[in-house]
């Protein structure tokens, strides 16, 4: 058996913010994807539970709705909107990449090497997705706070 000393960085390797500067926005996009995925899953489970109150009559339904009618509730929902938009947008970028679009064409690499797959198009997509997610959050807040 291999010794496990330092054989893995562990979760530190994922989270360590020092990495993102050195490794570029793609890695940040990945960790954000993961966090939003988990966040959405948590929200989704909660959402299913919440909507099940519809079976318990109007009083219970309204009471459970109350919870999100507060300021914190609105902020929470706004975050969910943001997560959803980011996760969707970035998910579409990833899927396009994984289908082979937007990666550039393989070919003889010339020094100094610049990886074609980490190109401006992809980076722009990530920034745009983050931007759109922020806009959506802002719009959602505007609607909710009326």
């Amino acid at each position: 058996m291999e010794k496990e000393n330092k054989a893995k960085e562990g979760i530190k390797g994922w989270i360590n913010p020092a990495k993102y500067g050195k490794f570029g926005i793609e890695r940040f996009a990945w960790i954000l994807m993961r966090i939003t995925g988990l966040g959405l899953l948590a929200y989704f489970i909660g959402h299913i539970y919440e909507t099940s109150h519809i079976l318990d009559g109007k009083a219970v339904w309204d009471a459970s709705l109350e919870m999100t009618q507060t300021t914190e509730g609105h902020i929470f929902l706004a975050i969910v909107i943001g997560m959803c938009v980011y996760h969707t947008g970035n998910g579409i970028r990833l899927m396009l990449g994984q289908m082979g679009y937007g990666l550039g064409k393989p070919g003889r690499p010339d020094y100094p090497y610049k990886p074609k797959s980490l190109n401006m198009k992809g980076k722009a997509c990530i920034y745009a997705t983050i931007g759109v997610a922020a806009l959506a959050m802002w719009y959602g807040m505007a609607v909710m706070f009326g």
Partner: protein
Amino acid sequence: MMILRESIVMKIHYGTALGAVFLTVIHILMRMTQDFHESLQYENVIANYQMIGYAIMLELLLILISVHGFNGLRVILLEMRQGPTYEKAVTYGCIASMAILIAYGSRTIIMTSMGMV
């Protein structure tokens, strides 16, 4: 231990994601047709549920997102630790949770749309 080839699982993962995008858009657009606060009124919600098309859509969305979400969770957990027992537990645990969530959500949708409230 593999129930399905990983590529098939991941095709489902992407497929459900795409399906979810589509349906979520509809879901949200329907909310948009009404005023936000109004759309959440008890009566309106019940009415929506009782449109059969809408109910089917909700059911689909429920399945898609559950499959996608729990598979996502499985992926993350698989990468956290390795070992045959652990990996088996993760796979079956995620399938079971997914099934439970779908069942629970379906109960709401079916009972509501059949007017059992």
